[in-house]
């Protein structure tokens, strides 16, 4: 599709963007779509910060003795990269941006169940973010995003308390978002929209919300206890007074492993939507894929012990956690097979969202399978704490969650902004990201197997070649991420106006105008067909 001529913005009909102007209309809005855009801006801001830390680290690691910063500063870089990327970008990204925007639209409601609570969630997120930014400016924190005691509670003299308050507060933002989604999906579905006619994105949001509601409070209390221990040295985590540092790890990972499913499940939901739309086919085994989302959410709570195989955890507990960790891999494998089967006898078009979705499937498969190395006790002894782990979780989070997020942004961009972006540039960006990503993180698998530990500011010389390759890949990846930023912002002003259903997709959000009016639907739609009804016999003209 060639880039349209640059015609000025014709006066569009009333929608949620031009319904009101001025900063008050944004900072005090109760409209879930505007809150989604507030989140979009703030998480992009944090993504740029986290990403710049990553680039600094990769430049530093080009030389064995460290090319850029002092070891203490490097420790602060990887800690803040972890905290900012996980708590302020990955966890909120799809649920808070795409979820907030799309759940009411897909469910056929005018807004989420508790709009005020939704706005409160964003403010809580911002307050938590400010605390974390303060801790970064006022000297940074060097405990690693995992805050392992007794280093974080007794031996670190950096801004542990400030970042602990920041993470503690931001946790409540995702608790309230999860609560909002569960109530909306249960109580506000349009007439005729039964559970098994819902789009799979809603199933993924429902499963993610279960984890957010059940897991995040445990992180809140753990970080609260850590802050108390750091301030008052009461000894529940420091062995000097009889405390057990492993208890902190148990409580921390009880949330933090399900948190990685908070990050990947929404991306799976987005990919289900994109694959169905661009293959013009119903998802193969719809019910199985829906149930596997919930299965991942539930099983995800039983496996956290595989983070602690070498920490002196009992070998019998390790046995149980290893078995359960293998079982949680099964639903993910089922999903991948079902997506691939959906393409069979489909009519596949290669717009940008489809490229991101296919990239997701490839990289998520790699990420998931390398997880088997870490669930198996014998190999985890060798690979734990090395770059193999770093490569594994980046394949899942960057290869999976970020590709899914970008795919979702490109898929629903016409609905969000009412504008279309240049498809050719989007395709180029997708390929650059795919190539840059693999070049960055595949060498780290080999580094990990060779035994290079993670979080090292300087390393033995024999690891340099692979580190230089990884750093080269990081620059390509960084460029890849900048391109969408440019043409998406460009499209908001100059992009061709989008029609209500540019991709010909099914789903209630495509039955209203692009961008939708503030009240979403002139009146509440009634659902009659199954989800993804692309088949010819009910070819409803659209």
């Amino acid at each position, binding site marked *: 599709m060639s880039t349209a001529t640059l015609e000025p913005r014709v006066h569009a009909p009333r929608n949620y963007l031009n319904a009101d102007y001025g900063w008050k209309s944004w900072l005090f809005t109760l409209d879930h779509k505007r809150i989604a855009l507030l989140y979009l801006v703030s998480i992009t801001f944090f993504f740029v910060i986290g990403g710049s830390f990553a680039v600094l680290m990769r430049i530093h690691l080009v030389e064995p003795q460290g090319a850029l910063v002092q070891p203490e500063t490097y420790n602060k870089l990887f800690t803040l990269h972890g905290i900012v990327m996980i708590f302020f970008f990955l966890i909120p990204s799809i649920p808070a941006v795409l979820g907030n925007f799309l759940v009411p639209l897909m469910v056929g409601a005018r807004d989420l169940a508790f709009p005020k609570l939704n706005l409160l969630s964003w403010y809580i997120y911002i307050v938590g973010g400010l605390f974390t930014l303060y801790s970064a400016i006022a000297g940074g924190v060097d405990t690693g995003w995992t805050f392992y005691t007794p280093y974080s509670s007794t031996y670190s003299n950096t801004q542990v308390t400030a970042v602990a308050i920041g993470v503690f507060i931001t946790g409540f933002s995702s608790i309230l978002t999860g609560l909002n989604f569960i109530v909306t999906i*249960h109580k506000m579905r349009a007439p005729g929209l039964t559970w098994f006619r819902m789009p799979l994105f809603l199933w993924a949001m429902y499963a993610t919300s279960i984890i957010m509601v*059940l897991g995040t409070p*445990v992180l809140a209390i753990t970080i609260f206890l850590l802050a108390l221990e750091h301030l008052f040295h009461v000894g529940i985590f420091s062995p000097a007074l009889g405390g057990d540092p*492993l*208890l902190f790890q*148990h*409580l921390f990972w*009880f949330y933090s492993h399900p948190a990685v499913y908070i990050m990947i499940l929404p991306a799976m939901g987005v990919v289900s939507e994109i694959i169905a739309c661009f293959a013009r086919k119903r998802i193969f085994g719809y019910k199985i894929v829906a149930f596997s989302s919930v299965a991942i959410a539930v099983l995800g*709570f*039983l496996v*956290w*012990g595989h983070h*602690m195989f070498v920490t*002196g*955890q*009992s*070998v*019998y*507990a390790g046995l*149980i*956690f290893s078995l359960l960790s293998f079982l949680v891999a099964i639903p993910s494998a089922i999903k991948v097979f079902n997506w691939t089967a959906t393409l069979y006898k489909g009519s596949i078009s290669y717009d940008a969202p489809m490229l991101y979705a296919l990239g997701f499937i490839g990289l998520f498969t790699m990420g998931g399978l390398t997880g088997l190395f870490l669930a198996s006790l014998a190999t985890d002894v060798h690979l734990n704490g090395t770059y193999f782990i770093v490569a594994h979780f980046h394949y899942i989070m960057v290869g999976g969650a970020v590709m899914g997020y970008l795919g979702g942004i490109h898929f629903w961009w016409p609905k969000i902004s009412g504008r279309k972006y240049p498809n050719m540039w989007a395709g180029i960006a997708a390929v650059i990201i795919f190539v840059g990503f693999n070049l960055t993180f595949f060498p780290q698998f080999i580094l990990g197997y060779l035994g290079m530990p993670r979080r090292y500011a300087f390393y033995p010389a024999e690891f340099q070649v692979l580190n230089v390759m990884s750093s080269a890949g990081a620059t390509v990846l960084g460029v890849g991420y900048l391109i969408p930023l440019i043409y998406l912002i460009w499209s908001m002003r100059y992009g061709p106006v989008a029609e209500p259903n540019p991709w010909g997709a099914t789903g209630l959000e495509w039955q209203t105008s692009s961008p939708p009016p503030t009240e979403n639907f002139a009146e509440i739609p009634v659902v009659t067909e199954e989800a993804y009804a692309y088949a010819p016999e009910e070819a409803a003209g659209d």
Partner: protein
Amino acid sequence: MSQPIVPQKTYLMVFLCLIGLTILTTGVAFIDLGPYNTVAALAIAFSKMLLVILFFMGVRHSSGLVRVILVAGFFWLALLIAFTMSDYRTRAWTPAPDSWSSTAPPTHP
């Protein structure tokens, strides 16, 4: 929440039961039952909780969904405690020797 209106007498009866159970649990604490003191205290507390949930919070008339959510909440808490405790309880058992025929693990408090 169009719950049916519960007669005041029921609330008073439930309140008296709760007071009785409180006195009971305090009394039982004065008898040394060894490890069963903890079991008794938790059982009484659990029954007091059920009384408050079913009558005062009106879960008797609530929808099935609310009940499932409540049970799920306590089940997840039980998961956290059970799995963490499993690590601490089995930490003293040294790994079984090659022949897997390990003698009974040493008793540990």
